[in-house]
């Protein structure tokens, strides 16, 4: 029997979350799809290989959200730790509370639900999570009276999985920023008190900067939060319901040092819009953004990535301050880094729909200029070797065929710019969270035409990105080979599918 510290609170997730995705965050997206053309085990290895753990089963890197919860509970005096899902059994004796978090428990979020709809097969993140919750260890834990708390950005999905909720014996689901509630909930759980079933943390209970703890151990691929909330107010987004808070530089620095101490040499700056760090409303302020990058580069010798940036901020920052070129040349594209990856949101190419659904996304430019804002910022990114992974939402409430055609036109205009574009079906979130989901039967021939254009764009640039930028490290050669094979497979499938679809939709 291995002698391990007894943790009364064990925080975990399934393998698709508890992985560093070979050090390439973007590969984690493979876990949102079903295993296409490959055995599931090989697909899982591609998307989410096992992570290094210590003797107690604590992962060297763990999802940032779980690290925050861990830190909050440790600060409150609990014996709590993030434990790898394969090592939970080591803590069965001492465990009293099991906390599970996920970005997409049941694959209802984007883009998982879309791959599921298109292929008709369950994505591996769903399969993996459900397998974990049905594992012997979790069942044993429940049988001995361990309280189970589920949370994270996908907490709402449990409301659609009540049979599974019951099967797993979930005690409480927490939806929203948990810092203000989690200590109290865990204390009550440990004391054996009656717990509520569901907690939705509203804007009034979002934690202040002081209530947000500094992580105690490394996060996956060095991801660290630089701000929370977003001022743009897009109706489809849940983040925008929360107040905007900038994490102070000293706190960010502490977290970078935690990661570096664990041997993580890269950093991903997490924010809904990195360029709005310290900003003036929706206008970037160059001094604050430069100070942030200066501090990060002082410590991080590997690559720096941005989790998200808005296209309007990119255009505004470059047009007014040449900020993008300056950041790229002075802080980002240095010796250890030849490109910068970032997620951006196009969502629609229709100014009409943009005005209704995301009127401030293009600000300070008017929504009527949205397609130009998108195109200009794609050009700016291309010129500065920034590679965006862009999302686009199909089936937004109020969308009509004019909107879909405008979006298709925009996709054609973006062809010269190196990028990955991912279409996503509308999932009710944010202010629109009580609206209807986009369903397969709502797909029109315009949608299909749009999706084909997007896939062609992405396949074209994916090969270029793989050849010049991505997975260049020698130890990643097998992975590169498999992904190239996958791209060829998708091309082949598409070449056979398109004529059939065209014949069907034009009939």
């Amino acid at each position, binding site marked *: 029997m291995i002698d391990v510290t007894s943790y009364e609170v064990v925080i975990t997730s399934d393998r698709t979350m508890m992985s560093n995705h070979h050090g390439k965050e973007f590969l984690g997206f493979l876990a949102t799809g079903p295993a296409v053309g490959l055995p599931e085990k090989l697909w899982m290895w591609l998307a989410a290989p096992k992570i290094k753990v210590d003797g107690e089963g604590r992962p060297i890197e763990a999802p940032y959200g779980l690290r925050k919860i861990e830190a909050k509970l440790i600060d409150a005096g609990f014996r709590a730790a993030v434990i790898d899902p394969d090592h939970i059994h080591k803590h069965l004796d001492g465990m009293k509370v099991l906390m599970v978090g996920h970005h997409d428990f049941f694959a209802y979020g984007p883009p998982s639900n879309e791959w599921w709809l298109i292929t008709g097969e369950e994505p591996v993140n769903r399969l993996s999570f459900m397998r974990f919750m049905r594992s012997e260890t979790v069942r044993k834990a429940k049988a001995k009276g361990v309280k189970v708390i589920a949370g994270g950005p996908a907490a*709402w999905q449990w409301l659609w999985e009540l049979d599974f909720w019951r099967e797993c014996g979930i005690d409480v689901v927490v939806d929203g920023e948990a810092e203000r509630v989690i200590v*109290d909930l865990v204390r009550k759980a440990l004391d054996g008190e009656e717990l*509520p079933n569901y907690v939705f943390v509203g804007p009034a209970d979002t934690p202040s900067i002081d209530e947000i703890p500094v992580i105690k151990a490394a996060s996956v691929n060095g991801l660290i939060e630089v701000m929370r909330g977003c001022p743009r107010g897009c109706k489809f987004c849940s983040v925008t319901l929360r107040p905007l808070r900038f994490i102070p530089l000293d706190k960010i620095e502490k977290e970078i040092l935690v990661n570096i101490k664990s041997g993580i040499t890269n950093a991903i700056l997490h924010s809904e819009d990195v360029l709005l760090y310290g900003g003036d409303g929706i206008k970037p302020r160059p001094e604050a953004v430069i100070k942030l990058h200066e501090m990060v580069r002082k410590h991080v010798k590997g690559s720096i990535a941005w989790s998200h940036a808005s296209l309007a901020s990119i255009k505004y920052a470059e047009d007014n301050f040449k900020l993008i070129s300056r950041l790229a040349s002075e802080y980002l594209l240095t010796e250890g880094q030849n490109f910068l990856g970032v997620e951006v949101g196009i969502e629609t190419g229709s100014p009409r729909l943009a005005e209704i659904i995301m009127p401030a996304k293009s600000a300070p430019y008017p929504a009527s200029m949205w397609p130009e804002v998108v195109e200009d910022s794609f050009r700016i990114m291309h010129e500065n070797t920034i590679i965006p992974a862009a999302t686009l939402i199909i089936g937004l409430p109020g969308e009509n065929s004019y909107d879909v055609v405008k979006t298709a036109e925009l996709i054609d205009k973006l062809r010269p710019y190196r990028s990955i574009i991912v279409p996503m079906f509308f999932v009710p979130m944010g202010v629109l969270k009580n609206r209807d989901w986009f369903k397969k039967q709502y797909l029109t021939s315009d949608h299909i035409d749009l999706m084909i254009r997007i896939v062609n764009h992405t396949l074209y640039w994916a090969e270029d990105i793989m050849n010049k930028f991505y997975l260049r490290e020698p130890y990643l050669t097998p992975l590169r080979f498999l992904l190239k094979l996958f791209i060829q497979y998708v091309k082949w499938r598409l070449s056979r599918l398109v004529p059939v679809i065209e014949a069907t939709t034009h009939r």
Partner: protein
Amino acid sequence: MSLIVKCLKHLNIIYVRNVQNLVIEMLDIELKSHHMVIVLDSDLDGLEMVLRNMAELSIKNGFRRFVIHVISTYGNPYYLEKLRYLLQSITSYTVVVRYEGSSSSDLLKLINKLPSDSSIFIRRDSPLIDALKERGLNIYLW
């Protein structure tokens, strides 16, 4: 604030005093909440009524937190299916949902524990409605 209540607060146990001087343990986040009881023995047709009540209480009394106590024959956690649309419609407030049982005695026990200004939402022809009569509560019928 009495010394006893101060001591209890220090011990992180929050109490709500009700008309019968009974107390219930609550989370900190349930402090300064308005309590609502929803009797769910069919689809929640009174959704708009609940949302309107929340909005009114938020404007009038500044409530940003609501605790929804559910009495339902659907059982735990299946009652949440009937409450799903309501929960998905709430974006501005903190909401805590508790399952409190299914019978009229569960309902009476619950009401005895809650503050007297709690709102109660119940179907007009619910068999549990008799249990609420003569109690002078804020009852909303749908």
